[in-house]
Every structure is written in structure tokens, then in C-alpha cells.
């Protein structure tokens, strides 16, 4: 004998129901056979002898009906009807099976069935879109990696490496003639090529004497371009006459190097640093005759 009212009296309001979840505004029912999910007199599967639900299993929907005669055997109490995959046909099946049942249950069953089919459709659509794969991070590995990275950073000495590389490139001449550092780098190139072509240089110097006088006018204009390299200008202007002269000669020889090594259009630029000294050349023409002596000074 099932006294629904008595059951509801007990579990509904007064005493404990293990499926009931109380929140501030609503009471929910966690029973898996509950049709609406709320804790109501009409939705409670325990307190209604005539009850039915829809449940889905792996994409298949079933209509579950409670057979109250078997209330003594709870495992066999629910009868299962497989619903068709066609939405309309399934609704007809529900109607057909719950034909003389209360309106409430029929209505709610159909509502629930609709909801279930909708979410199944969405699941199928999502699978086709991009799936986000979660890759688990291991804390141990991550911390090890971090430590290794720190040590690698220290070992890398990035600033030094970058500076070294840039200086290498400057030496090899990848920057062309944008920069002009007369003294040291070209000294080395000088010493290399000195042995090869000393005689050529002497000849060319005479030729270039003529050419260089022409350049003087241009250089004055170009001096302003190199305001960046104030250091170079300071170097030139503060040094002694003799040094300037040796520098001049070295610069001449640099020019020769440049002429020999690459056809550069910026020949005019390089002597611009010593343009202050250049002007003096007009007075000091005599000194070219004593060049070999001066040259030995430069190379030694």
C-alpha cells in the first residue's frame, strides 16, 4: 500500500529526504528519475505512485514508467521504452504510452524530451568544431624548466655575445662605409696589404694628390653629416699637427684600400673627419715629398 500523501508529508516538509538540495530560493531534487529536477509534491518520484520520466543513455532516449505494483522490488520498478530517433515519432510514442496519465506528467515528459534532443544536437555540432585539448602540466617539470632557463640565461651572457657579433660584423665590413673609424681597424688591413702592394700605393698617392685636392671643397660640405661621431671629431681636432699628418697619410692609404677593395661612392666621407687638418694641407704641400719618412713613422 502506497500512501503518497503520507510519504510526501514526511519527506517533503517535515523530515529528511536524502535527495533534497536546499538553496535560498529553491528546493531541488537529486533523484535521477525526477522529471523536473525540483522538489515538489507533483515532481517527487517517491511520493507519486503514477510517475514517468525521460532519460538518455549514450544518445538514446528512453521513457521510464513507474509500475507501483512492484514497489516492493525497487530494482524492477521502472519500465523502459526506447523512443525513436525521429522527434515527432518519439512524441507520438510518449503520448501513446502515457495515454491516460495526468496531463502534468505527459507535458513535462515531452518538455524534457525536447530539451534532451536539443542538447544532443549541440553536442554533435561541437564535436565537429575545434576541440580544445587540455595538456596537463607537471609541476616538477615546469619548475625544473624554469630553473634550467635561468641558468641558461646566465650562461648565455647575451649582451656580450651581441656586442661581439656586432663588432665582428663591423670588422668584416658588412656595414659598408656608413661608419668610419680610421685608426685601428684599418691599420690592420693596412699592414696586410702593405706587403702586397707598396709600390702601387706610392704611385697612386701621386695620382690621388691631384684627386684629393679636388675633394677638399666637397668635404667641407659633408662634415656636417657626421655630427653623430663627435668623438672622432674631438680626436682629430685635439691631436698634434704631426699626428694629424700621420692620420692624414693613413687616411690617404685607407682611401687607397677602399679603392682597391671595394668601389665605394662614399670616398668623400672618410676624410671629412680630418677636414680641419685637410685645410692645412694647402700650406703643407711640401711635406708630401718627405712622405717615405713619414710613412715609416706611421707603420712603425
Amino acid at each position: 500500500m502506497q500512501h503518497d500523501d503520507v510519504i510526501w508529508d514526511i519527506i517533503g516538509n517535515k523530515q529528511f529526504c536524502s535527495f533534497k538540495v536546499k538553496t535560498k530560493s529553491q528546493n531541488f531534487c537529486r533523484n535521477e528519475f525526477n522529471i523536473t529536477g525540483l522538489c515538489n509534491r507533483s515532481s517527487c518520484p517517491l511520493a507519486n505512485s503514477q510517475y514517468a520520466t525521460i532519460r538518455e543513455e549514450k544518445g538514446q532516449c528512453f521513457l521510464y514508467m513507474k509500475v507501483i505494483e512492484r514497489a516492493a522490488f525497487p530494482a524492477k520498478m521502472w519500465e523502459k521504452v526506447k523512443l525513436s530517433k525521429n522527434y515527432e515519432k518519439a512524441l507520438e510514442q510518449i503520448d501513446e504510452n502515457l495515454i491516460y496519465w495526468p496531463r502534468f506528467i505527459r507535458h513535462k515528459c515531452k518538455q524534457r524530451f525536447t530539451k534532451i534532443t536539443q542538447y544532443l544536437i549541440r553536442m554533435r555540432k561541437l564535436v565537429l568544431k575545434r576541440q580544445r585539448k587540455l595538456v596537463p602540466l607537471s609541476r616538477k617539470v615546469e619548475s625544473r624548466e624554469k630553473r634550467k632557463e635561468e641558468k641558461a640565461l646566465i650562461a648565455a651572457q647575451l649582451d656580450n655575445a651581441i656586442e661581439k657579433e656586432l663588432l665582428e660584423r663591423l670588422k668584416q665590413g658588412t656595414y659598408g662605409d656608413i661608419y668610419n673609424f680610421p685608426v685601428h681597424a684599418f691599420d690592420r688591413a693596412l699592414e696586410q696589404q702593405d706587403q702586397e702592394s707598396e709600390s702601387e700605393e706610392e704611385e697612386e698617392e701621386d695620382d690621388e694628390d691631384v684627386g684629393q685636392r679636388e675633394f677638399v671643397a666637397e668635404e667641407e660640405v659633408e662634415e656636417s653629416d657626421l655630427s653623430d661621431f663627435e668623438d672622432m671629431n674631438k680626436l682629430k681636432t685635439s691631436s698634434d699637427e704631426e699626428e694629424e699628418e700621420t692620420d692624414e697619410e693613413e687616411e690617404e692609404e685607407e682611401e687607397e684600400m677602399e679603392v682597391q677593395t671595394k668601389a665605394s661612392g662614399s670616398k668623400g666621407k672618410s676624410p671629412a673627419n680630418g677636414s680641419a687638418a685637410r685645410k692645412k694641407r694647402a700650406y703643407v704641400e711640401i711635406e708630401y715629398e718627405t712622405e717615405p719618412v713619414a710613412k715609416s713613422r706611421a707603420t712603425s
Partner: protein
Amino acid sequence: MDITEVPVSRDSAGKSKKNKKQKKKKSAEGAVEGKETEEKKTEKKMEKMEASFPPTFSVSEIKNKQRRHLMFMKLKQEKRKQKMQLKKKKKKEREALGDKAPPKKVPKTIENQRVYDETTVDPEDEEVAFDEGTDEFSAYFNGLTNPKVLITTSDRPRGRTMRFCEQLATVIPNSHVYYRRGLPLKRIIPQCVSRNFTYLMVINEDRQTPSLCLYGLVLCHLPDGPTAHFKVSSVRLRKEMKRRGKDPTEHSPEVILNNFSTRLGHTIGRLFAALFPQDPQFVGRQVATFHNQRDFIFFRFHRYIFKNEKRVGIQELGPRFTLKLRSLQKGTFDSKFGEYEWVLKVSLSARL
């Protein structure tokens, strides 16, 4: 005390055994004698122990924390002193020998001790040169194509990620940032190819906590080129960098690639090199560096100035980050059917 105790126990033992049968008495006496010798030995030992510390004493056996700490500190100081003395002695010897001193020993570093990698590329290797002449980057290195980069993110990027993308776009010339609205990469790639993009760069973010964000970088060379997947760490945006310069200009930067010495390194190096245009504008004085150290690739962006030909000053501008290669895939991005050329294997239990 012990000496007086022994005869008592002996006697008692003897007496108790005397009460029993005679056979046992004899054996008991023998046993007692044995005991006697043993006890004498223990006596001697005990005496020794009382005189000095036993050899197995260590600082950790002191139960009192303060005293233990004190003793430990003393021990450490002793050791340090000895070490300093040793060092001084060695230095003196060195100076005394002068020129004849043996050469200084080079400390062992990971770089020194590394096992030689067989895949290291020899600069004159013909096979490698031939391969590189015909691989996917050859079009770029022969000057036929100009790089055009598309930078995008994963869905719903955070502000920080978008800022990172924008800064990357300033570093890499001819690059465009596009907002990704849920488009799958498979569909983006043909569109990019049709618009002549050479590179696709995707920055995937994963927000673990509101403050910590992990990044992944997918770098895909477009006309069916290799796809590299990196883990990005320690990202510093321009705002967060100390002593940085002004924003980079529009000039194409130079590229420095350090320590990409193996075959795999070569491919990755070329991958990075092809991001930037072939002719850098030296007027801009900007340099982008990819430095590989122990499988971490450090990216830096600097502006340099030559003070004289022996010294150069560099000033960091632009973002910095480190990459670690996770996988290299032949062909464009395809996570299901792609052919992986190289995958990073992480083993928890491997001893480093």
C-alpha cells in the same frame, strides 16, 4: 664502579650455576671467563670514550638546537678558513713560479662537458648546403619572396596578449595583427596563402591564475612550410622593461642567430631568419637577436651604436622572451595528420 660490579655478577652467575649440575658448572665457568674478557675490553673502550670524542661523532647528534647551530657555524668557519689558506698558498706558489707556472685550469661547464652531437653541421658540408638550397626557405634566401607575417592569437585574447602581439608587429617589419574570431587554423591557412602571406604566427595563451599567463607560439611557414611549436616563457613587454629605449622605428632590423649549430638548429634558425626582410637597413641600427643556449632560444631586440671600432653600446628596446621548441612538423599546421619531424620528449624520472 665497573670493576667492582664485575666480580659481583660473576659470583652470582657462578653461584646460580653451582646450584645446578656439575657439567653445567664447568661450562658456566668457561662462559664466565669469556664474559670477563669481554667486559674488560668494554671497560677499556669506555675509558677511551671518556677521554676524547669517538670518531663517529657529528654535529647533528647534539640535541640542543642552539648549541648545534653554534657548533655547525664553527665547523663552517673552520672549513672556510682552511679553504682560504689553501687558495692563498696556491696563489703564492703560482706567483713564485712566474712564467713556469702550470696553466690555469678551465672550470667545467655544461657547454664544455657536452657530448658531441653528431648532427652538428659542418660549415662546408655539401649535403647540408644542397639540402638548404632546395628546401622550403630557398625561395626566401634566393631573394624571390619577401616576408609577410600574419600574427594572431587564440580565441578571446587577454589585453596582455594583444599588447604582446602589437609589440611583435612593430619588431617584425611587414607584419599584420588580426583578431581571430573563432576561426579554425585549417581555414585560415588557405586564405593566407591566397593573400601571399609567408608566415603565420599564432600566440596561444593559457591563463592559469589572473597573474600568470603561459604562452605557446605556433610559427608556420606558409606555402606548405614547416610548422614549429614553441613554449614561450618570461615575456617582458616594453612597459615592464627597465632602462629601455624609445620605440623602434620602421627600419628593418638586422638579425643575429647564435648557436644554431645542429641540423635541427639550422632549420629553426632559417625559420627565424626568414621572418625578416633580406636587406636590413643599417641606418636604423636595430638588431633582433635569437640566441640559442641549452635549447632555450632567447629573443632580444636592441638598438646599437658604435662608439669606436672597439666598443659598441647597445640599448634594449622592444619585447623580450624565451622560446623552447616543443615540436617541429613538416608541412603546415595539422595536429591530427601532420608528420612530426621532431618532438620534445619530457620524462619525469630522467636524471638531469
